[in-house]
């Protein structure tokens, strides 16, 4: 591997970018991810997860078993929105408009 070796294929992030993030203090996969986009693409870190953990382990001189894997999230593989639309209603999903429109009689705090 050299500096230009691609670690995250989805987002085309190379080794040098990962090492720069580690040098600026990011010590977990998820912290490196937010600086570099490594692992944010369609495969959601399935390919690069262990590669990045190895790089962290070597850079910080810590055993691989101490390096947490990235946080996996639903839906685990790309899923059509039409398949996700369900019958379940959740009152916690709200519209921006309805929330902030002033109601009759509202007065500013002066």
């Amino acid at each position, binding site marked *: 591997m050299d500096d230009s070796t691609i670690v995250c294929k989805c987002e085309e992030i190379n080794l040098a970018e990962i090492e720069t993030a580690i040098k600026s203090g990011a010590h977990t996969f*998820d912290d490196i991810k937010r600086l570099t986009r490594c692992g944010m693409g369609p495969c959601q870190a399935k390919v690069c997860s262990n590669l990045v953990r190895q790089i962290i382990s070597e850079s910080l001189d810590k055993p691989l078993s101490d390096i947490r894997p990235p946080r996996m999230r639903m839906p685990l593989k790309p899923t059509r*929105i039409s398949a996700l639309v369900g019958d379940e209603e959740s009152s916690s999903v709200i519209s921006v408009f309805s929330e902030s429109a002033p109601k009759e009689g509202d007065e500013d705090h002066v």
Partner: protein
Amino acid sequence: MSNQYDVVIIGSGVVGSSIAFHLSESRQKEILVIDKDYPLSGTSGSTQAWVWVHNKTPSWYGELSMLSAELYPFLERKIGDVEYKRTGGIAPFFSESDRDSARRLAEKQAEVGIEIDVLNRDQVLEKEPALSPNIAGATFSKIDGNVNPFRLVELYIKAAKKNHVQFSFYNPVIAIKRNKGMFKVITKNDVFMAKQVIMAAGPWTKEVGKLLGVDIPVKQVRGQILVTEPLAPLIKHTIGGMRQADNGEVLIGYSKEEVGYDRRTTLDVIQDTAKMAVEYLPDLAKANIVRCFAGVRVIPNDGLPILGPVPTIDNAYIAVMHSGITLSPIVGTVMTELLMHGETSIDLKKLRLDRFNESNSYV
């Protein structure tokens, strides 16, 4: 590092990092920022990052948000490209009966200089042809936009470091003691002394406040977001509920749940958010979701920012708010004025912590 500082900022999210950067510009203070984890691991890294103004009420709060949005272009000249885009913001409504309240909002906000157009269906579709024809109308303002939150916080920190600000990450604060007029900040890895302390710990500010014996009236409120695969350009504006990022992915969701600091996503909210996505933008039905995520906002009990000195403790300050992304430029500016000169260009009276004590005068 001598462990002795003029200012210690607790929290390196968008608010703490912005204060650190703005305060470091004059290079007159020794500044340390402490974070329990790493920047972006909390609220600042789990957001759609709208720079959203037009329907923030009461109108003085809208005005504060507008002033902050106005600062973004200048901020970019100082810290670099944070992908700030003033896209204009659209907040759709689906019922004709909402048009009256849209007009009232526009009138109220006009008093403070926020320009809002109340659009009919055709005008909305002209701006965003992909929006559903079932929409009755929308409020629209040119002032709204969005920013890349990862770049924003990273560049605040880079610029602050250039001005010699020190950072200590993965280092939770365990205790804060008063010692001969100084604060003794005891962390997992170190002990720091500070003349002034700023609490900017977002959803953890209540716990940090307890270390100083101060009750900070804030709530933790979860939001869940769906992320699509990169799509061809679909929407140009920031839409109340969703936006499309530079790389083509669309971020969707607006939900509020009080479940403590729990960042799990849940099927009911995901399904309802997917439904909202298709109701707004029917074409999205065919798009793939690659990830859902959740973030926990901090929302003060009355919904408005808490900013300024802690009245009961000399040299202790607080900066905690929902909408830290929108407000970070103005908050960094105003807090710098306060710490450098003791007074601010904007009256902070309505934002002070002690407003919560005046129990009945503030409803």
